[in-house]
C-alpha cells in the first residue's frame, strides 16, 4: 500500500530560489536608521560621563570597558561615586517609572572593581605636542586639567602647596564620606597617565611671569581655602575657629577628640561636615542657620544623616555678637523671619526686630562660605584678552604664558564634578588655542556639549564615536516602556548609626557584583543601542544585520521595506524613521 500511496499526486509549491532575489527595499518610502540620542543623565552630568553606556556595559558584565568609559570623561570615579551630588539621578527617566537608577553607586562599584583587580585602563591619548602647561593647585580642577591635557598630548606639571595632592578632597572632606584610599586610587590613575605632581611647592604671585621660559600656559586651580569673615564682634576670639581649617587639622591628625558644645555658623556642606566630625570626636554640635532647613545649600541627604547622628539644627537665627564668659562663649543670636521667597523657593529673611537670645557654647565654628587664599588667584584685573567660558576663564596677555582660571575660582557650583568640568574645559580651550585661535574656542566647546550641556565630552572633542550621538535629550514619553519591568532601586548598605558615631569609618558600604549588575540593568539606556535585538526579532524582512565585530547593528536597505516596526519596538528610542528622498 505504501508503494501505491507514493503515486498519489502531491503537488506542493516549493522554490529553491532564495527570496534574496526579491529586493523589497524598492518598496520603501520611509527609512529606519540607528539614531542614538542623548540620555538626560549624561547631559546633566557636569563631568560629561556617558552614563547610559556605562550602565549598559556594567549590566553586560563589561566592568573594565564601563570603567574606561568613565575615565574618558572623568578621572575621579572613586571620588565622584561617593561625594558627587549626582544631578544625573535627579533627571533620570526611570523616576517616572519607579525610582531613579543609583548611578553613583554603580560608579563607585566600577572604580572599586578596577582597583581590586589592578586594571590598567585603555584610554586613548593623542600624539605628543610641544607645548607644556603648569598647573597650580593639585585639587580636583587642577588634576583634571592636567589629566585631560596629557590625553590631548601635552606635558604637564602640577604644583601643589601641601605635602599630598587632592586639595579640598584631601583636606576638606571628612573620611567618613571619602576614605583616603578612594582618593589615592584616582590620583594614582591620573599619575599613571603621565601627570607630574610636585608636592610642597607653594608658588607666589610672580609664578606666571617666572614660568614663561618653561611653560606655554598656566592653569590656576587653587580653590577656595579661606573662610569668609562673618563681620561680628568677637569673631577674632581664639574660641572662634575657621571650619575649613578645623577639617584640615582633623585630616592632618592634629585633632583626635573634642568635648563640649560647639556652635557651627552656616548652612552649607562645610557646616554639615564640621558638625558631623564633631559628634565623631565626642562633642555636641549645634548648627545655626539664618534661613530654613529647606533653604540650606548643603545636600539634603547629608543634613538628614547629620540629624540622625545627633547634630542639632536651629533655623532662622543669625549671630550678632560673641563674647567670653568664664571659659566659654556667649553667642548672641538675632531671630530671623521669612519675608519672601525667590523663584526657586529659597527664603529671603529679615531680622525679627528686638528678638534676641543668648546661648552658651564652648566654641564657635565659622562655615559661612570660602574664598581664595591669595588675592592674585582672583581673575579680575588681569591684563590681556579675556575669554569667559562657563567654567573657566582664559586670559591671553599677548606675550608669555596663557593664564586659565578654573575650579572653585570661577565655578558657580562648587562640586567635584564641576571641578572636573572646569579642568576639561580648560584643557579643550588650551588645545584649541594652541592648535588654532582664541576665536575657535567657543564654537569648538559648543560642538562638544552632550545634549545642551552642562556636560562637555572629551570623547566628542577627541573624535570618538560619541560624536555621532544625536544631541536630542530623550524624555520618558519617547521610550517604549512595555519592555521594562518594575524593579526597586538598590538600597545602599550603610553603617549603623551607632557604628558611625564611633569613628570616621566610611558610612556607605560596598555592594556586591550581582547587586551592581542588577542596578545597572535597571537603566533604560535611554537613546542608545544595548543590542537587545528587538529590531532584529521584529524585522519581517530580516533586514537588520548584527555585525559580529563590534556588536553593531545595521540595516540592509536592499530589503528593508520601511515598515518602521523596528523603530516602534525599540525600547530605548535608539532608532528613527525618516522620509526617503524620492
Amino acid at each position, binding site marked *: 500500500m505504501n508503494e501505491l500511496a507514493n503515486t498519489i499526486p502531491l503537488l506542493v509549491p*516549493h*522554490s529553491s530560489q532564495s527570496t534574496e532575489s526579491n529586493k523589497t527595499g524598492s518598496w520603501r518610502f520611509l527609512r529606519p536608521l540607528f539614531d542614538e540620542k542623548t540620555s538626560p543623565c549624561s547631559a546633566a552630568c557636569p563631568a560629561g560621563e556617558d552614563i547610559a553606556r556605562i550602565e549598559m556595559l556594567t549590566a553586560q558584565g563589561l566592568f573594565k570597558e564601563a570603567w574606561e568609559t568613565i575615565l574618558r570623561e572623568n578621572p575621579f570615579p572613586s571620588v565622584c561615586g561617593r561625594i558627587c551630588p549626582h544631578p544625573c539621578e535627579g533627571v533620570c527617566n526611570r523616576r517616572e517609572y519607579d525610582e531613579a537608577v543609583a548611578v553613583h553607586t554603580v560608579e563607585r562599584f566600577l572604580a572599586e572593581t578596577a582597583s581590586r583587580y589592578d586594571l590598567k585602563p585603555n584610554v586613548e591619548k593623542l600624539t605628543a605636542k610641544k607645548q607644556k602647561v603648569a598647573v597650580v593647585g593639585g585639587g580636583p580642577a587642577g588634576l583634571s586639567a592636567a589629566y585631560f591635557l596629557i590625553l590631548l598630548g601635552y606635558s604637564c606639571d602640577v604644583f601643589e602647596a601641601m605635602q599630598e595632592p587632592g586639595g579640598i578632597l584631601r583636606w576638606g572632606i571628612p573620611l567618613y564620606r571619602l576614605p583616603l584610599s578612594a582618593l589615592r586610587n584616582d590620583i594614582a590613575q591620573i599619575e599613571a597617565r603621565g601627570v607630574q605632581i610636585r608636592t610642597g611647592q607653594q608658588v607666589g604671585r610672580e609664578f606666571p611671569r617666572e614660568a614663561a621660559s618653561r611653560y606655554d600656559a598656566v592653569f590656576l586651580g587653587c580653590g577656595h581655602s579661606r573662610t569668609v569673615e562673618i563681620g561680628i564682634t568677637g569673631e577674632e576670639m581664639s574660641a572662634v575657629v575657621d571650619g575649613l581649617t578645623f577639617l584640615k587639622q582633623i585630616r592632618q591628625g592634629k585633632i583626635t577628640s573634642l568635648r563640649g558644645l560647639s556652635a557651627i555658623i552656616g548652612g552649607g556642606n562645610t557646616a554639615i561636615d564640621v558638625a558631623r566630625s564633631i559628634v565623631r570626636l565626642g562633642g555636641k554640635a549645634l548648627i545655626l542657620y539664618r534661613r530654613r532647613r529647606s533653604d540650606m545649600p548643603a545636600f539634603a541627604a547629608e543634613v538628614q544623616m547629620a540629624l540622625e547622628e545627633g547634630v542639632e539644627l536651629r533655623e532662622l537665627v543669625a549671630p550678632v555678637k560673641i563674647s567670653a564668659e568664664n571659659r566659654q562663649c556667649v553667642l548672641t543670636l538675632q531671630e530671623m523671619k521669612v519675608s519672601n521667597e525667590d523663584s526657586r523657593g529659597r527664603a529671603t529673611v529679615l531680622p525679627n526686630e528686638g528678638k534676641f537670645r543668648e546661648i552658651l557654647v564652648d566654641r564657635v565654628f565659622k562655615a559661612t562660605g570660602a574664598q581664595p587664599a591669595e588675592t592674585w588667584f582672583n581673575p579680575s584685573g588681569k591684563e590681556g584678552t579675556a575669554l569667559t567660558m562657563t567654567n573657566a576663564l582664559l586670559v591671553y596677555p599677548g606675550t608669555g604664558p596663557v593664564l586659565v582660571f578654573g575650579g572653585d575660582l570661577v565655578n558657580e557650583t562648587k562640586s567635584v564634578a564641576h571641578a572636573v568640568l572646569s579642568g576639561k574645559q580648560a584643557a579643550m580651550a588650551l588645545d584649541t588655542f594652541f592648535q588654532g585661535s582664541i576665536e575657535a574656542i567657543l564654537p569648538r566647546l559648543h560642538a562638544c556639549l552632550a545634549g545642551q550641556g552642562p556636560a562637555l565630552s572629551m570623547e566628542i572633542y577627541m573624535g570618538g564615536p560619541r560624536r555621532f550621538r544625536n544631541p536630542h535629550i530623550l524624555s520618558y514619553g519617547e521610550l517604549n516602556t512595555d519592555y521594562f519591568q518594575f524593579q526597586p532601586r538598590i538600597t545602599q548598605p550603610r553603617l549603623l548609626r551607632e557604628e558611625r558615631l564611633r569613628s570616621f569609618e566610611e558610612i556607605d558600604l560596598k555592594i556586591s557584583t550581582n547587586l551592581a549588575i542588577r542596578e545597572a540593568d535597571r537603566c533604560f539606556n535611554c537613546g542608545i543601542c544595548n543590542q537587545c535585538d528587538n529590531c532584529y526579532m521584529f524585522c519581517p524582512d530580516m533586514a537588520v544585520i548584527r555585525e559580529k565585530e563590534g556588536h553593531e547593528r545595521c540595516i540592509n536597505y536592499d530589503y528593508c521595506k520601511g515598515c518602521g516596526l523596528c523603530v516602534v519596538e525599540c525600547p530605548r528610542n535608539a532608532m528613527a524613521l525618516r522620509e526617503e528622498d524620492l
Partner: protein
Amino acid sequence: MRGGVPTKCHGPEGGRPMKRVIEGSHAVAEAVRLAKVQVISAYPITPQTHIVEILSEYCANGTMNARFLRVESEHSALAALIGAQSCGVRTFTATASQGLALMHELLHWTSGARLPIVMAEVNRALAPGWNIWTDQTDSLAQRDTGWIQMYCEDGQEVLDSVLQAYRLAELVYLPVMVVLDAFYLSHTYEPVDVPTEEEVDRFLPPYQPRFQVDTENPCAFGQLVPPGAYMKMRHNIATAMDEALRCLNEIQEEFHAIFQRRYDAVEAICCDDAEIILVTSGTITSTCRLVLKSLRERGEKAGILKMKLFRPFPVALVRKATSRAKKIAVIDRNFSFGASGIFAQELRAALCNVPDHPPVFGYITGIGGLDVTVELLEEIYWKTKNTTFPEQESIWMGI
C-alpha cells in the same frame, strides 16, 4: 494513570492483556503515545484539556520522546505544528469548539500544504451562550477545509481511530480530525484494549515524508502560484480525498489482521432488509443500537447507518446501504442555520442522483449536549414510520 503508563496486566489465560478502564480523552493520549508522535502543541480548552494534560506529563517525565510546545492560542498551536510537520516529524494537537474556530485559517493551510497532521477534536457547542457540552457544529462547520473527519462511537474506537488516522494521513498527505463527543466520550471511563508498542509498530511505520524542510537543500514552501498551478494543486487534493476512501478500506484490513477490530467508513447495521434506516454518528449510535434491538424484537424492520467517515463523504457506501430502504431518518446533533442538519444535507446530496431514492427525514436533537434518550430515538422512528413524506426539512426533537 498519571506519571507514567502502568505495566500491562495479562488475563488469567495468558492471552491478550486485560483491558484498561480509561476515559476517552486518555484513549486519545495513549494512541498518541503509541504512535510515537514527536511534536505536540495545544492550548487547553474544556473538554479537550485532559488529552494534552496527560500528554504534557508524558513529555515531561520521558514516557514520550516528544517536544511539547506551549502556545498562547489554538491558532499558534496549529501554526507551530505546520512548521514542525514541514520538517518531517509526526505531530499532534487537540482542541474543541472556539479553539477549532480560531484555527480555521490554518486548517485550510494544513491541507493546502499537504501536511499529515492529526488532531483530536472534542465536539463542543459554540458560544454564546457558553456551553461546554457536546454538539457537532464546531467540527462540521470545518467540512470544507480539506481535513479528513472521523467520528467515534466509544473509547476503543477513539484509540484505534487515532492510530488509523496517522496511517491514513501519511499515505494521502492530508490532515485528519478524529472527532469525539464531549463528556459522553471524552470524560467517560470505558474498558479499552490498549495495544502494545510492538503491535502498533507493526501497523504504523515511522513517518517518512515525501517532502520536508532540509537545511542541506534549502527551499521555501507555499509561495505564490499562478491560477493554473493552483487549480492543479486543488485537484490533487480532491484526488487524494478520493484515494483516502480507498486507503481507509485497505487500512481496515491491515488493522484487523493485527488487532481483530475494524471500522469502515460507514457501518450498516441490519440495513439489508430495513425499511427505515436511522442515520447516526458519534455516541448516539450506541443508544440507537439499543433502540434497534428493541424494535427488531417487536418485528420492526429498522436499521442503522453509522457514519464514521464524514470527509471524504462515502457516497457510494451510503447509496449501497440505503438502496433497499423505504425511508431514511438522519439524526443531526448540529444545525446549519438557514439550511438543515448537516448530515441530512450530505445524505440528500449523496442520494439526489439516485433514481427513486427513499425520502430523507431530518431530525435535529441533542443540541448543546441535550440527552438523546432511547425514548427520543424511538419517537423519531415512529414519527418517520407514521409520516409518508417529510413535511419539513428539519424536525426539532426534544425542544
